[in-house]
């Protein structure tokens, strides 16, 4: 039996926030999935898995929900709080609105890791950090072992611990990024193995590497932090999330025939109001949100019941939620229950324990759209300039709000071979009228924390506290110089360019208190690349020159200078001299003839 629900109750839109309430219990497990269709025929799927382990059993190494491998790594490296992110793709904030989880569960392109480590001093903290990255590298099949001192920073104001830490710990925050890391299936497999139900039951059974890494944007995160209740009972909380934006049309392609093919003429969606519309001219219409889709089609799998470990008591019983207007019809599998929230856009499903669940939305024209918030800030970062010696960085912040200024912290780490000139930092402000005027950077930048790079030891760390006035766009620029690397420091594909880690923007939101994070895209920096056969050429050339010079000088010093006839007299006595004089004679006969002809 299927349930067709057709209700049109446009109510106040409220975005769900699953984890707003942190429940402290000794040992429990929760999982849920939020499906949110976005404009341009995209679908945001947010998977969240959260479990708690009591501090005592964590200390005694009795692992139940917390994976043993990860728990032991944390204990070995004395890491109190850990955040690990694997991200690919770009979040299209202009079409899709604000980021899921306010950006707090995503990282920059590639892999990003930051952790609070308990250590008596900086050097020991760094040693433990290296242990941590080496161990995590093995666990997640990622190149985290390449996070060395040049890729590690210690941000001052950009990150705050989420967990509750005891006063006695001397915590050190270390942050590392690998912008060039290609996140793929080999990272998803260990990620799923960390879950208690291992991708075999519950919502995690939907996760499939083929679909996840085919998404327009995806982010996997692992967060571990201690959470304490006011009474002082502490638990170690592990939260894993997977967020992905799937293109519904692309995902519905069958896996056996995944090659995209042109749409036949008669299936093109054209704007027929255009005067030139005819059989061979078409003005394509934008993608609409009324397409039909189902879980099985989009994810390529069915949802295999619920994970029996998940806490089914209390308010978190609905493990799958969908955000479409209530007027839209939704078919669900037998045994599942639908619960509609009174915001008019959210409905959740209570699944039957062991039967597969599918959810299907038919094609339907709807009048109401789920409202999307406007992001608080748009940010964009690019490398400008030409030539192989110098370049410039340009960062554009635009504040869409007409009423209030936005305060934020801009944090970037630059590799050591990119040497910024901070004195060239300039700010340009552009209002809605399109007139841009230059103003001193100090008008925009309220505070600066700058730690210059040391060649081959550490990168540049720049944290700026900025304020962008309402309805304006601020462009920051600075110049930089590109260093020339040593011959062995170039990677095999040096001409591809060098990755520069994304910048992190932390918006201090006084209303919501929880910070909003935005990350720019990563950049490719072209460095001057030498001819890699150079050392051999140098060896050969210098050897030849030295040999030539040496031979000449040596011969001058040891040879005896005589006149030609004397030489022939001397030479005629030896066999070699005779041969030489014969050869010379023959040569000269030819030349002599030539002269005569002349």
């Amino acid at each position: 039996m299927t349930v067709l629900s057709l209700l049109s109750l446009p109510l106040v839109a409220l975005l769900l926030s699953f984890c707003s309430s942190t429940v402290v219990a000794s040992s429990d497990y929760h999982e849920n999935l939020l499906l949110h269709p976005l404009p341009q025929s995209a679908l945001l799927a947010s998977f969240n898995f959260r479990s708690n382990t009591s501090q005592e059993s964590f200390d005694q190494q009795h692992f139940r929900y917390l994976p043993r491998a990860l728990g032991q790594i944390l204990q070995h490296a004395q890491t109190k709080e850990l955040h690990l992110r694997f991200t690919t793709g770009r979040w299209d904030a202009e079409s899709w609105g604000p980021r899921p989880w306010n950006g707090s569960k995503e990282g920059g392109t590639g892999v990003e890791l930051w952790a609070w480590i308990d250590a008596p001093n900086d050097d020991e903290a760094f040693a433990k950090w290296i242990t941590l990255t080496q161990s995590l590298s093995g666990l997640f099949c990622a190149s985290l072992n390449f996070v060395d001192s040049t890729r590690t920073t210690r941000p001052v104001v950009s990150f705050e611990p989420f967990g509750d830490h005891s006063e006695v710990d001397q915590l050190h925050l270390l942050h590392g990024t690998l912008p060039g890391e290609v996140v793929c299936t080999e990272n998803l497999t260990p990620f799923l193995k960390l879950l208690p139900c291992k991708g075999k039951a519950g919502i995690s059974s939907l996760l499939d590497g083929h679909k996840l890494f085919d998404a327009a944007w995806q982010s996997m995160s692992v967060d571990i932090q201690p959470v304490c209740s006011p009474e002082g009972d502490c638990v170690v909380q592990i939260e894993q999330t997977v967020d992905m934006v799937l293109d519904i049309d692309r995902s519905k392609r069958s896996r056996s025939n995944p090659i995209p093919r042109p749409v036949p003429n008669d299936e093109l969606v054209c704007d027929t109001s255009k005067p030139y519309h005819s059989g061979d001219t078409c003005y394509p219409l934008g993608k609409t949100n009324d397409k039909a889709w189902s879980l099985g089609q989009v994810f390529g799998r069915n949802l295999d019941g619920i994970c029996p470990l998940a806490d089914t008591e209390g308010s978190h019983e609905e493990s799958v939620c969908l955000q479409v207007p209530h007027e839209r019809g939704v078919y669900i599998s037998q045994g599942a229950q639908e619960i509609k929230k009174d915001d008019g856009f959210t409905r959740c499903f209570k699944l039957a324990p062991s039967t597969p669940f599918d959810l299907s939305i038919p094609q339907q024209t709807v009048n109401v759209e789920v409202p999307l918030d406007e992001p608080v800030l748009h940010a964009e970062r690019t490398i400008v300039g030409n030539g192989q010696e110098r370049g410039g960085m340009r960062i554009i912040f635009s504040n869409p709000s007409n009423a209030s200024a936005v305060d934020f912290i801009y944090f970037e780490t630059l590799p050591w071979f990119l040497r910024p000139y901070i004195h060239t930092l300039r700010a340009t402000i552009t209002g809605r009228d399109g007139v841009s005027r230059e103003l001193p950077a100090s008008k925009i930048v309220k505070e600066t924390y700058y730690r210059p790079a040391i060649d081959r030891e550490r990168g540049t760390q720049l944290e700026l506290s900025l304020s962008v006035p309402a309805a304006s766009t601020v462009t920051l620029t600075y110049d930089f110089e590109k260093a020339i690397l040593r011959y062995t420091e170039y990677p095999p594909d040096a001409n591809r360019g060098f990755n520069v880690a994304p910048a992190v923007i932390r918006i201090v939101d006084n209303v919501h208190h929880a910070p909003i994070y935005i990350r720019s895209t990563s950049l490719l920096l072209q460095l001057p690349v030498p001819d890699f056969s150079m050392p051999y050429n140098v060896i050969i050339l210098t050897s030849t020159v030295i040999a030539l010079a040496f031979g000449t000088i040596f011969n001058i010093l040891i040879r005896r200078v005589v006149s030609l006839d004397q030489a022939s007299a001397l030479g005629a006595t030896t066999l070699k001299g005779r041969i030489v004089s014969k050869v010379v004679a023959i040569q000269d006969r030819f030349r002599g003839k030539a002269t005569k002809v002349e």
Partner: protein
Amino acid sequence: MYSRVSMRAWSLTSPPGNFPHISNPRQDTLLWSTKHVLIMTTKTGDQGPPQDLASHADIKSSAKSAPPPETPAAVQTRFRVIAAFWAVIIFLGFPIWWKTTSIYRASLPIEEMVDWADGKACRPVFPLDIHLAAPSMQLAEAQHLLRTTQHTLDDLNEFAAHHLRLKLANDSTTSYGESDLGTDVSGEVADTALTVRLLPQEDLVGPRSELHAAATQLDVFYPPNQVPAPSSSNSPISKFIAEELQGLYGEEKATIAHILSGHTAGLASTSPQLAEDISRRLRRSMKYAETYHLSFSLFTPGSMPSSWDIEAAVKEYVSPLLKALSPISDFTVDTQVQLYANFAPTAPKPEFDEAEAAWTLRKEDLSAFVNAAEWPLNPSIGSGPTINFILYVPEPSQSPLIVKENRASSWIVPQWGGVFLLNPTLSTDKTSESNPAHLSRDALGPAFMTFSHQLLTLLGTPSTPASLPLRLQTSIRIRAATLLLSASSTMGSLARLTESLPSIPIPATVATSVSTTISHLGSTCSNLREGRFGAALASARVAETEAERSFFEKSMVGQVYFPDEHKVAVYLPLLGPIGVPLVVGLLKEVKRIIAGRKAKRAAAS
């Protein structure tokens, strides 16, 4: 070079060989002369003296004139030039080249290392001190009994390296053997392996013995009338005690003999069954380490059971054992619960056996039981090996699961860990059967008893005697012997390696490690000889660690694969063109000197 250039200039214009054939010599000479002058100007005076030019007018007459002999000063200069070049090469270039390309090889005591490996440096002996306490006997009687028992024991012993030394308890004056008894606290005294208490008991026909399970004590009850007379050379009691002791230490003796003899033949008297047991146990047991990580895992293919009363089970069954084992090694314990753990796709599936009414696994398939690819059994972080204990709860549709051949539910994976199949009572729902959601401490009891037994086996503890402290003492001696041999053989391998590969560097740290190893091996050997087995084990541990560190030194392997072709490719472009003129110059000079000597000698004669 220069002379060559000038010769070319001359020959281009008119070589002397051509001259006679030209029909009009005068004209030609004239022509030639002007040409020559022209060339001379372009050559800017790199030719010979001007009189050379003047003499060309009558070149015909002077064509074959030999140059004047070189002045001794010129010869001397040339000699000095060549000598200077070669001196720079030999005294400056060569040492720099040697210095910059040589490999640092610290000197190792190769002979000593080989001696250790060959067993020449130390012959390990295991003298066990056994205290005899006879509170109800006269001193003379007791001493006599001790002497006769020792005599019988020595007669029975066939393995000289392992012998028992009897001593009277609490009486240093009557100590038997050469060992000097100091104060107990100094640590210089030998460990007491066993205390034998002689207790008279009236209603006995012959002597009987009782071994304490939790202490190193053997009670021997004897009928009072059998106390040997001082005159008799033999008595039933001493014979009995000797045989008892022989029996207690029989397995240990066989094991040590097996280890020392290099895993071939043990003692002649060892039964084939016992020899097989010993060699199997030695094969199964883990390599000795200072720290072992014990990892207990609950695996189940479904979702139930998802929790277990592990804290209580560890506390009850594992902790007491670990406390007893703490003198030998340190242990850490971690546990995990893993659901949805399936068999590997290639592993053979369990089959249903009608006769047994159970699902069975064949014995030869047990090696494929653990799905190493998917089950998260990665070793614990930190130094030391991990011993895995797996509690597997089959899914209800495959329960009960047993081993086909012997209906066993547990087995040991050699040098890795143990597996226990737990078939809990299924709770029957109205539709289906299911495993219980929680495993209580009682349900875990049999499994953890098995695990503790498996742990002892994996640590190489012998199966006899019944007393655990005695077995642990035995284990200390076996470990010490094993470590001594393994560190010695590592020394031998290192010596052979450094001798067979002359191109590998030997850093100073390796030399330090080697000397530490050798000194600790020496102290192990002397501690063993004096019966201080705990101290012997401690030094053997240090020796083993240092030996492994020196053998696996990273910087030693780096240069092994640096081929000579690379050196040739780098040196040849430079050394070829430079070397040839140098060598030719040297040869000519040598030839000249020899010719000069001959001429001088000829002139002298």
